[in-house]
């Protein structure tokens, strides 16, 4: 029996255990942190010779399975806030559509790639750095916390702004009462950034839910996966219809690994505290940021890359 499988759309053969192993790894991260994993999987697939456009589109297809599996697991654990998820999704679709128009204008103005990459590095660095420091402080403080008397904090400008918003709604699963305008607006913001940066937005959405919506980490992961599921269904159908870049066999092999990985990630996530999860995600985001920064600063060994990548 051959260990190689030929991919009909990628025009490339791949080693079966390598692809399933990649799926398992990225699925694990997906179930653990509620991110789609596209920011990690797509470069890995390109590294093993899959054309960039096929890698990105087929990855979206496999994320459908991984996020469906992860959403289901989190739903059974009571970790999905559907009301919040739908509002973020609607905001995301509106923002994403606007973001695509923005990127078109930027490309016409020239040097859009630079802006994309710099936005990526700044966002990753900012979000990852803040999450890392905050989680570290929180982890350190958690032990002596019982003996320290609570300090009364002043209400921040952000908190005052939230309180002044109309149509307050109770999001029971998340345990918060806020205006639905907030998740709609934040969803739109993430949608714009995701469209500009060309990623699903999972690792921007997760910190937004944790820090700006003040949702508990475990509900954040489940709700984020629920939202990613819809985004990737849309991307897969659009890519298959317009660009013919979805390689079903590649997606199938990846999802065999990723669906199992997502389940394992969800279980592993339950054993970790919210701050531990955050610090792990922050480390991952910072590693990706450093890798991107190196790519920007170090002379590439080859001046050309196949069009459609990055």
């Amino acid at each position, binding site marked *: 029996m*051959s260990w*190689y*499988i*030929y991919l*009909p*759309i990628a*025009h*490339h*053969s791949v080693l079966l255990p390598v692809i399933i192993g990649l799926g398992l790894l990225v699925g694990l991260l997906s179930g653990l942190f509620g991110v789609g994993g596209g920011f990690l999987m797509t470069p890995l697939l390109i590294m093993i*010779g899959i054309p960039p456009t096929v890698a990105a589109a087929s990855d979206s*297809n*496999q994320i*459908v*399975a*991984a996020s*469906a*599996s992860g959403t*289901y*697991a989190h739903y*059974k*654990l009571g970790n999905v806030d559907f009301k919040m998820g739908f509002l973020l999704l609607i905001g995301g679709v509106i923002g994403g559509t606007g973001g695509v128009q923005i990127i078109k204008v930027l490309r016409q103005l020239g*040097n859009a*790639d*630079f802006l994309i*990459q710099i936005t990526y590095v700044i966002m990753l660095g900012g979000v990852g750095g803040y999450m890392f420091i905050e989680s570290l402080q929180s982890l350190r403080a958690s032990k002596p916390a019982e003996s320290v008397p609570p300090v009364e904090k002043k209400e921040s400008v952000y908190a005052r702004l939230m309180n002044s918003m109309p149509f307050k709604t109770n999001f029971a699963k998340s345990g918060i009462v806020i205006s639905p305008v907030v998740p709609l607006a934040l969803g739109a913001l993430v949608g714009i950034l995701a469209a500009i940066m060309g990623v699903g937005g999972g690792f921007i959405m997760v910190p937004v839910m944790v820090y700006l919506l003040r949702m508990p980490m475990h509900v954040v992961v489940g709700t984020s996966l629920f939202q990613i599921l819809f985004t990737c*269904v849309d991307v*897969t*159908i*659009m*890519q*298959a*219809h*317009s660009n*013919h870049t*979805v390689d*079903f*066999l590649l*997606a*199938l092999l990846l*999802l065999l690994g990723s*669906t199992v990985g*997502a*389940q394992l990630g*969800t*279980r592993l996530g339950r054993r970790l505290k919210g701050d531990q999860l955050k610090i792990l995600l922050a480390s991952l985001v910072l590693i990706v940021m450093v890798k991107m920064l190196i*790519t*920007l*600063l*170090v*002379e*590439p*060994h*080859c*001046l*050309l*890359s*196949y*069009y459609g*990548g*990055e």
Partner: protein
Amino acid sequence: MHNIKKIPTVLLGMLVILFCAKTASPALSPAATVTPPQINIGLFFSGKRVSIAGPILPGRDVVVEIKGPEKKSVFNMKGRVGPFWMNVQKVELEKAPFLYMLLLPEGKDLLPVLSSMGIGINEIKRRMVVKPETVSPDTIFPSFVQLKQADGLYKEMEGAVQYSQAKDGARCFKAEFFMPSSIVPEEYNIVISVFHNGKLEATTTQKMPVHKIGVVKEIHKMAYNHGLLYGILCVIIALFVGITMGLVFRDEGGAH
């Protein structure tokens, strides 16, 4: 009347005899067997070793080129802007083959002759058309070759053509190369050239078609002819597998 009817048949027979007489002479036009004569890309395809063999007269050398198809390729080109390396423009290349391999005999310095005839990887640079014209082929050609070599699509192999003496005293040549799995299903040309004392004596071209077969062909056909339906099916299958896996894991009792 009866004899007149036979004229076309006789003429055809004469043509066949003439053709056979020509191909039987190894010096004039190298008769070679390509094994396999065509490549089928199925589900477990991981590239294919191809061999070319045939008779050759003493004192002759054989050079084999495998090339095709000439398609437009589009690349991102990186450049330095301030301290950053980034994609600065889109570059299109035409008249550069998707695959190019050159198989040479060992120890024969045929490269200067071949170069004068436009044979060899470096000669592609002279022929290829770069758009926009402001980008010099000299700037991007090394990177282009580097990308192709990484995919196993551009090669120059010295010693890949070998000679042997058959029992009846006839001389034969044999060349082998590996068609990587990254080939596209099109028709490739195998050009066999015979040299005598550093001069081209004969050349012949054989076609080697590459086809997709079975599941690979069907998936490709559906993806291109019924994109929307294909996309919806991909999503349904992914959802089914994802949820099934969720159920399987729940049934194993690990979830809650």
